[in-house]
């Protein structure tokens, strides 16, 4: 932050020198019109690059805090479910009100798509965290509309509402499947064979939904990678369901736990 301000300071420090209108300043060193124009362009580039840096930083902060929420959700067990979930929701709200709000304030007009690459990773992670919390709480998919509605008081620099774009939402939901898979495997390992079934239905629905979407032009590589990972997660969960189904009846419940702990380690 210090460094950025220093750069900014230098850039603006140039300003009086470059305006070149006052005769006092131009007398010592006549500046060619070309240079004057480039000074102006230079300031424009500096402002742009500083904004990009701030967005990258804000995006990273969103990522870090969203990840913490996801980790917290993974620590949920039957004993602490309500309390942990409540805490996760509170943390998620904090990310929304602090980091995401800060990010949104940098943007206006064309900026959203211009700098999207700078802040998109953070927003994807936030989508992942928000949808994970919602799934654990209510067993359903948080829609983009609901997510954007929760951003109602977040405004960009032009006082326009800030929204998550469809590509970011879709990629975030793609990551959600990985979290769901982990929840299913650890749920089964903890002796809740039902966990795998619920997750299996969810991931299957997501995968089927994804399959009918055209490739995301904005993130082609991510898109392909995530579609592959998604199928892998689905296969893992389906295998877990299969194991519960086929072998579940052979073991008393207390032995199931051990069995799946092993297969969970093996597969992840």
């Amino acid at each position, binding site marked *: 932050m210090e460094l950025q301000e220093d*750069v900014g300071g230098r*850039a603006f420090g140039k300003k009086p020198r470059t305006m070149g209108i006052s005769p006092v300043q131009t007398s010592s060193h006549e500046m*060619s019109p*070309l*240079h004057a*124009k*480039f*000074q102006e*362009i*230079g300031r*424009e*580039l*500096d402002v*742009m*690059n500083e904004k990009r840096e701030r967005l990258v930083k804000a995006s990273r902060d969103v990522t870090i805090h969203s990840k913490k929420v996801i980790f917290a959700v993974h620590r949920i067990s039957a004993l602490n479910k309500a309390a942990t979930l409540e805490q996760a929701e509170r943390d998620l709200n904090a990310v929304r009100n602090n980091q995401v709000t800060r990010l949104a304030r940098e943007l206006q*007009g*064309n900026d*959203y*798509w*211009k700098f*999207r690459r700078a802040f998109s990773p953070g927003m994807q992670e936030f989508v992942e965290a928000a949808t994970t919390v919602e799934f654990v709480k209510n067993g*359903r*998919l948080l*829609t*983009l*509309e609901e997510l954007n509605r929760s951003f109602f008081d977040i405004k960009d620099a032009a006082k326009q509402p800030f929204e998550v774009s*469809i590509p970011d939402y*879709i990629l975030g939901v793609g990551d959600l499947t990985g979290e769901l898979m982990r929840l299913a495997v650890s749920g089964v390992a903890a002796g809740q064979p039902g966990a795998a079934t619920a997750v299996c239905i969810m991931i299957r*629905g*997501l995968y089927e*939904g*994804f399959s*009918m*979407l*055209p490739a*995301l*032009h*904005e993130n082609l590589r991510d898109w392909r990678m995530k579609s592959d990972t998604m199928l892998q997660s689905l296969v893992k969960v389906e295998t877990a369901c299969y194991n519960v189904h086929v072998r579940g009846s052979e073991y008393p419940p207390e032995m199931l736990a051990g069995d799946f702990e092993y297969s969970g380690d093996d597969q992840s």
Partner: protein
Amino acid sequence: MEMQFEAFRSQLEESGAVRERIRAVISELDNVVRVMQASLLPVHHATTQQAAKEVLNKAKSYIPQLQKLYSQLAEIIRDRPGQYYRYHDHWRNQTHTVVFLLSFVHWLDTQLLLSHSEVETLLGVKPEEFSIDIEDYLIGLCNISSELPRYVVNRVTAGDYECPRQVSAFLSDLFSAFRILNLRNDLLRKRFDGLKYDLKKVEEVLYDVKIRGLLSNQAAPKPMES
């Protein structure tokens, strides 16, 4: 959940259709740019001022077509406020070449650099509606620099010994202007790094001409001392 994906599908497909429309314009733009670039090539071996003028006029005659195509792009983007950069990649490369062509023609005409706003004026785009990205403009300028060494060599061969001095003055001015900018490690930076080699080549030609006493007025101020 299904409904949501259905909605995404139709929105993404619509965005894909926008890309298709842009691509159609761009492939036309490609054609115009190519022909315009080809029409400008004879400037390297135009023997008389008159011939050079004709080449420039021929090249300029394509500008209305560029305007038409850029206004089509602007029209597509107009319906999608704020999404200029969502589709920017489609016209980036072409815009580099367009900026190069316009500013090279302008320089040949006037020996002056075409400014960013002049580019927008020439293309008939309104900055608030469809601006030319500033970095695209700068990359286009770097392209002039790579064309100039060849131009200088050919001019000297054709007996124009003043040309290296003009070009060297212009290029060193451009080079020092670029050095004002704090560039990131990106394409523009890479293109800028090539600028000094162009300048060096031009200076070598200037040196050759000068040392052989071919310059008409030896007392002219040395451009390098700017």
